[in-house]
């Protein structure tokens, strides 16, 4: 078991590694050069906005408005960070903590529920199973507005609007996570193993906790990562259900700051850019730390 699991981990998409030599005809130098040129240009297009953001975050106001955007002029990053963290009594830190809380706790709960559901759907035949799965797939097509507006009304009736619960509760139910969990269960949990465990007298809950969850660490990590990214990126839901700025997420905070200039004439561009750069950092850390998981996740995402 560990061997196959290990192999699956090292080689999440086996076909990707199969070939090492390029196709013969493209070995011709002109062809390769053309390909490389195209890819280098595309990479430059992909990277230059990020580069610009990094450079901009190191400039003070005059530098931002007057110097060349693609190169440094003076090192004011620390000053900018200091301003960012002290502006309005450090509200930016509060937003960061909120985002981490919603994305972290919400995704963890959502992942556990999704794994249980995916396992139930993939490995048991119960009446109504097809209907549950139809709900999962069908919900991919439901527009966010159709869910979020009535949810806002319902939450406001039970007094949840403007509390962290308004963000956390919706994270618990994520049909796409359930779909992924089902696919992963089908790929990693053989029926025979479950039968053997049952013959040994293990209860269903025990089987799930000590066998299934353990074998599903790769799948679970992918589900968690994608849910985390989703919540971190969420915009419409927090904009709708969070009114007071002490509960806002980073996204809503940055959105609000970026609108200040037209609204009240306060130019927070420098803070917005430094904050934007910082809000990428947790995402980058997650992505790098879990690189081998999310690549399979992205590919599976296509099945949605």
């Amino acid at each position, binding site marked *: 078991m560990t061997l196959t699991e290990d192999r699956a981990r090292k080689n999440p998409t086996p*076909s*990707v590694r199969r070939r090492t*030599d390029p*196709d013969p*005809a*493209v070995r011709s130098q002109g*062809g390769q050069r053309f390909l*490389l040129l195209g*890819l280098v240009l*595309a*990479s430059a297009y*992909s*990277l230059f*906005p*990020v580069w*610009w953001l990094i450079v901009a975050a190191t400039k003070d106001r005059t530098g*931002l408005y007057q110097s060349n*955007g693609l190169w440094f002029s003076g090192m004011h990053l620390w000053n900018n960070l200091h301003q960012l963290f002290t502006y309005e009594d450090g509200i930016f830190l509060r937003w960061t903590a909120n985002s981490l809380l919603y994305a972290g706790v919400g995704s963890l709960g959502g992942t556990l529920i999704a794994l*249980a*559901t995916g396992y*139930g759907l993939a*490995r*048991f*035949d*119960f*009446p*109504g199973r097809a209907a549950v799965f139809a709900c999962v797939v069908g919900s991919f*097509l439901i*527009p*966010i*507005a*159709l*869910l979020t*507006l*009535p*949810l806002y009304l319902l939450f406001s009736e039970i007094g949840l609007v403007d509390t962290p619960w308004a963000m956390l*509760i919706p994270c*618990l*139910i994520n049909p796409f996570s*359930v779909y992924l969990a089902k696919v992963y269960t089908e790929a990693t949990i053989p029926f025979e193993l479950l039968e053997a465990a049952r013959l040994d007298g293990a209860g*269903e809950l025990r089987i*799930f906790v000590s066998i299934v969850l353990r074998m599903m660490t790769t799948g679970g990590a992918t589900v968690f990562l994608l849910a985390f990214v989703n919540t971190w990126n969420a*915009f*419409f839901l927090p*904009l709708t259900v969070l009114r007071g700025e002490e509960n806002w997420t980073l*996204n809503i905070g*940055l*959105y609000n700051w*970026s609108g200040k*200039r037209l609204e009240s004439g306060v130019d927070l561009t420098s803070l*917005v*850019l430094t904050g*934007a750069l910082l809000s990428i950092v947790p995402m*980058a850390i997650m*992505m790098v730390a879990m690189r081998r998981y999310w*690549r399979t996740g*992205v*590919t599976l995402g*296509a099945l*949605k």
Partner: protein
Amino acid sequence: MIHSLRWKGAAFTLPFQLGFVFLYLVPIGYAVYQSLFRTQQSGLGLGGASERFSGLDNYQQGLTDSAFVSSILRVVLFACVQIPVMLFVSLVLALFLDALSSRAASRFRILLLVPYMIPGVVAALVWINLYSPDVGPLTPLGKLFGADWNFFSPSMVWPSIGNLLTWHGIGYNMVIIYSALQAVPRELFEAARLDGASEVRIARSIKVPYVRGALVLTGLLSVIQMLQIFNEPALFRNVTPQTVNDSFTPIMIIYNQAFNAGNYHYAAALSVLLALILGVASFLFYRLTSREAD
């Protein structure tokens, strides 16, 4: 024993089922219910508001609301341009990667995926500043070549948003198409080469038809997202409210009706309409594109 096993299996899905009822079915039912009512001001607005059943009036109003209809047409028209461009670029890059050695391919793949790692709101903020005539490098760059472009003007705002979405989406779509390409049996290429087919011909006649399924899926996902576009225009509205007004896209109208006009009933009806349109659009897209593949 088998019987009890079934119910135990169902129990694993119970938390999800309960949550789905409360977070999906009840809200949708509530939205449909709300959409059938209207707020009526009694006694010249002094006697307070009362809810009155109005049947399908909200729907009728929505279907004849020129702002709503034109916001949908605007988004559909935009989707017809941006999605094919994005998918074409993603396909070309995936074909390029596929022709490289796998080590070189994996390096470029990571670089091209960097935008996908940037949160959508941050991506929009960055591009808005790149476009900005005050701080962005693109306006001086245009002047260098004698072009005096304004990325926030009415004629430029969709191309500006389109470029942002394309930049953000290329990597993701490319990875999906690329992994579909990797699954094509290599023997096919050898056979075609022996028959004297050129690389371009092989790409066009073997590789592209093989990844059609991936293209349909990425296209469908993009269509669904596009009809619900909100974040990017909302952020653009922060810098250029004259061009990006509050009824620029369908979701912006719905949000505005609900929270600025306080007209939940109408907003609910518009959300249901949008859901129906989304369903029909996805169905048509799927039928059209998969028939082509036959």
